[in-house]
């Protein structure tokens, strides 16, 4: 069946079509591209892409998928469409419960392999479910390695500032030159004149009513009478001209969000195929294969809203009956209609199952919506069932970053379980609630997990008890309470082993390793975590491997095991990028910035901090911008005060481990400005908090600033070795310890405080090499106060001017090149990846205008850059 007369001609789209064709040319050369096509509803986005597809013929393989206009869309709906094509590379992978990333990977592999270029069309992204947005992000990042053009359409006037599509657009469209955005402009009056043809229409009026919207124009021109007041009127006028049976077909079609099977339409309407044909011939709906659909969503909603609610509900109910008889009913579709009947029984039959399916596919927003519908209609179900629904809903809400609402549902679930006597269910609910509440109020979470443990101890031990122990251990690790964390880790592992709960055992060991790393025996912590990584590798469990690697990297950074920590962090970032685990990649990069700051590589710290995408996570910002702010403090650069103040507000209510480094930065700034009273006032609160933890480095550095301000004379118990030595006045030991760790700034502070002329001179050298002007000025002043003669003046900066425009880092690398080091050796020496070292070397060769490392070394010697001078 086809609409008589065909579609109206495509006008004023030649430029956009040419643009898209040029992208396809690029793609066929192996430089894949992505185009976002934006425009209001009815402006002609679909028509544009369909026209392109027709023009292309067989030269290009086309895969086509669309998002559902369901209030709760089917997860991965566009990929379901695409998988229906046997030649999509994913039809076999697209199975119930398939991991979404396996699917994405299979499709991208297919896009890389083809001989012909492929155009992948994803329509109506403004309706996309979360998993589909993940797909767009995934394919958008990898498309340049393929021979394909991905075209994604969306209504730009329907995505508000909080729309989940926004961050995806922001991520992809900025700074990636293979991603383009096209916008469809409205049709001009001239185009309307062509469309009106022989009809006598006031084109200026028509343009005013329709705003040049192609769909509106077509609908209005299809009417016989004079111009109607609105497009909705135009659509309904056409429907009303149909006979009763054909009109009924149109009405039932309107309750299906996208398209309706012709035979379902006929059965629901209680009529015959002839009536369906009449509705198509009148041009009100379009016949496409075995489906009926509206030309546009605007027409569908106009018809749907014109029906009495009772009739709509009746249609939805009968739709559920029809779908249920299918061999493999589509759960999301069933749940969509079930929710619209408002019938609690039907909602509960389908929504929870549809939610499970959505969650398994990574569509957590959709899962939450189905569960919300189920909870709203929970009147007739047992408290136990309602509690389980609320618990699941709480988790899904927590995952999609709505912790407050999640916490309310978790609390309600706990209350529902209390009177039931099911201690295990109550204990599990309490554990989950503690996890959800942790970021909102750690103290309450601690009390909740304690209650969970005591409730679960009433029953024989099982997996829920092991999990509760893990949770308690984790909280105490985060708060740096060593003994409690170790105790709960032990109980978790012991319980898990006795009941065969493998997962809980592994996360118990992971937490034990992390605890040892940050508050105990560092080497034992590393050994335990490496064990977790090895076992995860053999099981192909990338998530566990990633979590353990990032714990090793961040915990190793906190313990100042720099070279190893940097290597683990680089590995974590690589792994995280491969699986689009953006948060972990960001947090690990933030830690690389902190390490670069601590080892005195401040250029690198600042540029790393600038690349950290905070992902809305406070601790990413505190870590990355904390490093940046401290670089400014130590260089005497502007912008330090403002940034530190911002971070102070941001850090309120966060764990001490994420706050004390910036507090130390504020104390240091006050000291460098000579405001001694402010140093102690700034340092004291977090110093006292640190004393209540087992964190050696927090006690050490906060203790150091208290000592500097005259607030304490003795090192606090449990302070990290180098700080403790410094505070105790054991200068030589402190200097050696800082040197061994690789912290030049701290080493120079110890040298300066020692008061010997030799140490003061080398402190000044170090500060000047770092570019630490305020600390260098302080050292010079100390030297004058001590009566040391010939205090070196502020450096003749020009001595630092580098030949051949090499950067400081490149000078350093060149020094190592002249020593004959390979990229891998340079990488190891500078805590960077071999790839980065390689980039530096090629930049140096380019700038020196030489072709080999040997020539570079020769040039370096000629320019007087002595070997190893970096």
């Amino acid at each position, binding site marked *: 069946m086809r609409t008589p007369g065909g579609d109206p001609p495509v006008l004023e789209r030649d430029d956009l079509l040419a643009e898209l064709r040029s992208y396809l040319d690029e793609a066929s050369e192996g430089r894949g591209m992505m185009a976002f096509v934006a425009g209001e509803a009815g402006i002609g986005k679909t028509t544009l892409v369909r026209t392109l597809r027709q023009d292309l013929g067989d030269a290009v393989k086309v895969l086509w998928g669309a998002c559902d206009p369901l209030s709760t869309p089917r997860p991965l709906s566009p990929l379901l469409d695409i998988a229906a094509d046997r030649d999509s590379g994913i039809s076999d992978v697209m199975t119930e419960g398939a991991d979404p990333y396996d699917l994405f990977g299979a499709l991208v592999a297919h896009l890389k392999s083809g001989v012909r270029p492929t155009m992948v069309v994803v329509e109506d992204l403004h309706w996309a479910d979360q998993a589909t947005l993940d797909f767009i992000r995934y394919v958008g990042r990898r498309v340049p390695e393929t021979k394909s053009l991905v075209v994604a359409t969306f209504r730009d006037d329907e995505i508000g500032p909080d729309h989940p599509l926004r961050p995806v657009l922001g991520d992809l469209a900025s700074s990636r030159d293979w991603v383009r955005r096209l916008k469809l402009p409205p049709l001009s009056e001239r185009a309307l004149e062509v469309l009106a043809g022989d009809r006598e229409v006031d084109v200026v009026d028509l343009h005013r009513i329709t705003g040049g919207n192609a769909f509106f124009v077509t609908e209005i021109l299809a009417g016989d009478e004079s111009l109607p007041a609105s497009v909705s009127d135009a659509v309904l006028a056409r429907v009303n001209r149909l006979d009763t049976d054909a009109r009924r077909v149109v009405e039932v079609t309107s309750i299906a969000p996208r398209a309706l099977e012709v035979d379902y339409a006929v059965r629901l309407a209680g009529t015959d195929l002839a009536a369906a044909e009449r509705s198509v011939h009148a041009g009100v709906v379009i016949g496409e294969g075995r489906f009926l659909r509206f030309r546009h969503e605007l027409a569908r909603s106009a018809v749907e809203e014109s029906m009495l609610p009772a009739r709509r509900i009746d249609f939805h109910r009968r739709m559920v009956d029809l779908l249920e008889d299918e061999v493999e009913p589509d759960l999301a579709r069933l749940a969509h209609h079930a929710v619209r009947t408002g019938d609690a029984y039907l909602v509960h039959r389908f929504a929870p199952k549809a939610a499970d399916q959505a969650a398994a596919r990574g569509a957590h927003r959709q899962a939450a919506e189905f569960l919300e519908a189920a909870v709203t209609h929970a009147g007739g179900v047992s408290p136990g069932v309602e509690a389980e629904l609320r618990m699941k809903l709480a988790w899904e809400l927590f995952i999609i970053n709505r912790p407050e609402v999640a916490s309310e549902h978790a609390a309600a679930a706990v209350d529902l379980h209390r009177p039931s006597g099911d201690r295990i269910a109550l204990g599990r609910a309490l554990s989950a609630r503690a996890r959800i509440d942790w970021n909102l109020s750690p103290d309450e979470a601690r009390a909740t997990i304690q209650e969970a443990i005591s409730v679960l101890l009433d029953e024989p031990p099982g997996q829920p008890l092991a999990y509760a122990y893990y949770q308690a251990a984790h909280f105490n690790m985060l708060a740096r309470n060593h003994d409690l964390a170790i105790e709960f880790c032990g109980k978790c592992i012991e319980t898990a082993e006795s009941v065969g709960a493998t997962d809980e055992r592994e996360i118990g060991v992971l937490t034990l390793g992390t605890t040892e790393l940050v508050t105990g025996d560092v080497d034992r912590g590393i050994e335990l975590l490496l064990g977790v990584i090895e076992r995860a590798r053999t099981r192909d469990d990338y998530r566990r491997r990633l979590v353990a690697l990032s714990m090793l990297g961040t915990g190793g950074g906190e313990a100042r095991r720099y070279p190893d920590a940097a290597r683990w962090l680089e590995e974590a970032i690589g792994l995280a990028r491969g699986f689009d685990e953006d948060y972990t990649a960001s947090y690990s990069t933030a830690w690389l910035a902190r390490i670069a700051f601590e080892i005195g590589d401040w*250029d690198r710290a*600042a*540029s790393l901090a*600038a690349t950290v995408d905070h992902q809305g996570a406070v601790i990413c910002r505190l870590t990355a911008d904390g490093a*940046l702010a401290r*670089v*400014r403090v130590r*260089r*005497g*650069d*502007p*912008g330090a005060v403002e940034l530190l103040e911002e971070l102070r507000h941001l850090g309120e209510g966060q764990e001490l481990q994420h706050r004390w480094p910036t507090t130390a930065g504020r104390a240091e700034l006050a000291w460098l400005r000579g405001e001694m009273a402010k140093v102690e006032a700034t340092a004291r609160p977090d110093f006292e908090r640190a004393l209540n933890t087992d964190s050696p480095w927090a006690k050490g550095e906060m203790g150091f600033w208290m000592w500097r301000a005259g607030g304490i004379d003795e090192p606090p118990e449990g302070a990290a070795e180098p700080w403790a030595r410094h505070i105790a006045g054991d200068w030589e030991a402190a200097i050696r310890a800082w040197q061994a760790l690789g912290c030049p700034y701290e080493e120079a502070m110890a040298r300066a405080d020692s008061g010997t002329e030799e140490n003061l001179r080398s402190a000044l050298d170090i500060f000047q090499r770092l570019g630490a*002007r305020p600390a260098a000025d302080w050292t010079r002043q100390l030297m004058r106060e001590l009566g040391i003669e010939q205090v070196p003046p*502020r450096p*003749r*900066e*020009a*001595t*630092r*001017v*580098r*030949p051949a*425009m*090499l*950067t*400081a880092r490149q000078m350093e690398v060149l020094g190592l090149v002249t020593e004959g080091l390979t990229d891998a050796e340079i990488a190891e020496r500078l805590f960077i990846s071999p790839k980065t070292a390689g980039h530096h070397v090629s930049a140096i060769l380019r700038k020196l205008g030489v072709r080999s490392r040997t020539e570079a070394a020769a040039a370096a010697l000629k320019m007087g850059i002595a070997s190893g001078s970096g």
Partner: protein
Amino acid sequence: MPRYIVERTFPDGLEIPTNPDGAQVCLTVVGNNATEQVTWVQSFVSADKEKTFCIYDGPTPEAIRRAAGLSSLPVDSITEVRVLDPYFYVGAAR
């Protein structure tokens, strides 16, 4: 975008000849600045040509430092400044 005064020391004096070579030096600096979104507004040079005070617009002090590094220019200090125009206050005094 914040405005900064960047102080630099040139022990051998800053000599930029008024010829195509000098123009090329300035263009190179401007080109390097552009990669860091940094704009060199103008500079004041001490009589002995050893010190310069350069007015720059840039997103962050780090960008100013990176841009200086690209052009091998020394940086003594960076101060964030605001424009103050005394004639702005003339009307207010009336």
